């Protein structure tokens, strides 16, 4: 299932059933189901060492490729809790750096906690699963799944479809 921007399906169900309805107003819709794309084969993603946890400073942005060398990505130590993050305060996250609008490489702006596309100015929230803050991208930046093993940060999967591919493993 494709990740939705900032709320997962379970969160949405909760809103639908209680939160919004009572707090804001009526007219709350029933939960929606996933967007159009279909589930492909669950191919095994490669396991890739991104780097050691030790020495990774707050604000660091480490470039790497995942799941193959033609797919640029960045690992960021945000310094605060981020959705899907690992390490201290769950602050370390990684994203594909190909903008999901037209495929330009997004740039990390640590002071803004955003990834910003210089072509058409789509902006993505590093703490919120790469959700679109504003701009023309019609899906979040794919988040690279990270885990810690023996002090090493490893990439082991991707949430969302990477720009320029019909499936993440070509």
């Amino acid at each position: 299932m494709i990740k939705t921007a900032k709320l997962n399906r379970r969160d949405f169900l909760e809103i639908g059933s209680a939160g919004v309805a009572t707090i804001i107003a009526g007219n709350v819709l029933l939960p929606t189901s996933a967007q159009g794309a279909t589930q492909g084969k669950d191919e095994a993603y490669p396991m890739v060492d991104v780097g050691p946890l030790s020495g990774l400073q707050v604000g660091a942005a480490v470039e790497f490729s995942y799941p193959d060398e033609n797919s640029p990505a960045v690992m960021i130590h945000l310094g605060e809790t981020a959705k899907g993050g690992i390490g201290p305060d769950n602050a370390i996250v990684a994203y594909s750096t190909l903008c999901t609008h037209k495929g330009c490489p997004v740039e990390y702006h640590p002071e803004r906690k955003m990834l910003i596309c210089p072509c058409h100015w789509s902006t993505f929230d590093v703490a919120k699963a790469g959700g679109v803050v504003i701009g023309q991208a019609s899906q979040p930046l794919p988040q690279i799944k990270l885990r810690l093993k023996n002090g090493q940060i490893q990439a082991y999967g991707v949430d969302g479809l990477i720009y320029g591919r019909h499936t993440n493993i070509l």
Partner: protein
Amino acid sequence: MVQVPLPPKNAKRLNTVCQFCIVGCGYNVYRWPEGKDGGPAPSDNALGVDYRAQLDAFDDWIAPSMHSVVTDKDGSRHNIVIKPDNDCVVNKGLASVRGGGLAQTLYSPDRATRDRLQAPMLKGPRGHKAISWDEATDLGSRVIKAVIDHWGPDAVGMKFFDHGGGGGGFENNWAVGRFFFTGVGTRAASIHNRPAYNSEVHASGDAGVATLNNSYVDAQLADTIVVIGANPYETQTNYFLNHMALNLQGDTLDLKKSTFGDEPFESGRMIIIDPRRTMTVATAESAAGKDNVLHLQIEPGTDIAAINAISRIILDKRWYDVSFVNRSTERQTFEAYQRSSLDTDQSLDNMVRQSAELCGIPEADLYKAAQWIAKPKKGGLRRRALLHYEKGLIWGLKNYEGVASVINLALLSGNIGRPGTGASRLGGHQEGYIRPPYPGGRPALNVDEAVRRGEVKCFWVGGCNPVLTTMNAETMEQTMIERGRPVQEAIDETKDRPMGERVARIVEALKAGGMFLMTQDIYMTATAKQAHLVLPAAQWGESELTSINGERRLRLYDRFMDPPGEAIPDWEIMARYARRIRTLYLEDENPLMANRFLDFDWRKPEDVFIHARYEFKGNSSDPAEGYSGVTYDFLRERGTNGIQTPTRIVNGIISGTPRIHSDGKFSTSSGRARFIPASLPWPSYAGQVAEQRKKHRFWINNGRTNHIWQTFYHHQRVPFYNDHNPVPYIEMHAGDAQEMGVASGDLVEIFNDVGTVRALAYITDAVKPGHTFMLFGHPRGSVGDLISDHVDPKTTIPYYKGAWADIRRIGPKPDFAKDLSFLPQNVSE
């Protein structure tokens, strides 16, 4: 793992245009049966693209949002991909965030769009219940006939779409107009977003200036683009990205060279008049450099003062276009304009100082703006400025004077009809309007008031949702409930009785103050919920339609799927009712009335298109949307580039019109444009608005944003968009928020003498202290509940942007908001 299916070689390829904003980007639609996907090798897919390797930037990527599976009436399932067209000159392969998700808005039993209206429904004691089209048509027609017979045609009220794109187009607009104006003959008509049947730009029409007079390429050629009360990065996205931003970045210098030759030119500059620092300001600065962008961050309603001050500077500095004014404008109006709007009895310094104070901006910025718009270039050549305005001005303090101030400035500076110039509204919806003339006068009847006063006995609402969007919206809903009740009793009491008896009982209820409410729409909107009779309409992609965009580009939008259930296009609904009413009048031996409902025997959308075309002559008497000679086949040939209206037939050849007024002629009896003088350089806040402003601390500005189209009707059903703005928010200045102990995400209540609404606080530097901003028409909290029923008396256009209210904190950020982003939406670097 997520995977997007690829269209096979034999996928059906059709053309369409985005259903949403005025820009009208071109899209290709691919359709093929489920399970018959193409392959990644170029020879195995319809795009001929090698999907075995990573694509480069700007290649033909199919984002997951561009695909969905639809089900036709026969139960067959088909993949649909809707992808921006690389060959369309409007968007050159770019999608906005809205257009990139068009496929997600299609009806599908698998997704939240499953709740489309699928059958006509009559409201009963336990809610709405499906009935047949025949029964629905008979009931509604008999009620309408009875209302005309008892109270006259003006007792049949209507509020309908009048636009192009999804839910509109030439076909549907013509059918609605034929029904209500030729058939019923009512003056109690109103347009979807306002209380009356009126132009939003009467002042432009009165000046003789076409509303959409430039071509989009003019934004690539202009020395200066002026954006007034609009936010094109967010809401006219690909006009901004593919035309304006290219100019600001210097990417159109070659085009300028080939067009202008030796005339001096540089990269474009931009002036933005907006109370907010929007993403348009930020991205324009990124594109042009800060020095080439001038943002006039004005106080509410003072745009008129700013524009008139700029014009006054141009006049006094002798930067105005003397030869254009002499040749193409009516002299006496020019003189009246100088004395009144430009206040020439006062010194320039005084006039500009007063305006700058009112606007809350430096005087120097007004001088700079005047320079950028009109100071002649080297060699005395005219500067080319393209002036665009939209709802900030149109729904501003005084509609008529606001629009007039811009048109006057364009006439004064000669910025109209030449390459790189123009004075057009930027637009909201697309256009596609042709109807028989409205039988009422000007100012038009305020239908919202006629509904409240009980004069409207049958109210038919089509493709709009006034319970959410009209001013004083809660009162509209209350009126529908109260006046609907006696009619509901009549319907319930006569269940299973013959139709004649039923209608007689309904008429009794109408006599007792009741109102019969009909709605036709695609979803069960807040308004439809109140309706006695609900009619299911087909949407974009389910029937062919034609529309024009902001540069009058006429295209054919192909049909690529079935409408759900028994839904039919709006034109067909109108035709059914017209034919039934005609029969009823014939049975009544009233041929005079019966003949008003003649000629509704259309079989297909093109029949309606051609029927409407008889209004045009193919010469200079045609309106700007005239499409003489054009057929569906002609448009099909031209794909997503279509032809720019008005069309002319010369030697049997149909030719388009990229730019209007290029001959220096205007649509007045003299052929010269008229300056529209106002009584003062700034009209000041009117009666109840002034009162509200005194009573309440915050200005509640409101408008559209990047992600959400109009009332959210589709987007609340698509997770990506819904999750972006699941509930209303209110932008607040950090200083104001701190003083009130409000943090981003906190729940606040906004309240005034009209109503209340709740929202999440969103702290941003986009707004000045004392200013706020909310989404227009959020279904879970409508700013319409705060807006007074004040209108510009000259045009019956509301001051939708003019609400003042107080704010109180209700509580901390609710749990459901924990994953929402509160990062700034106005930074681009």
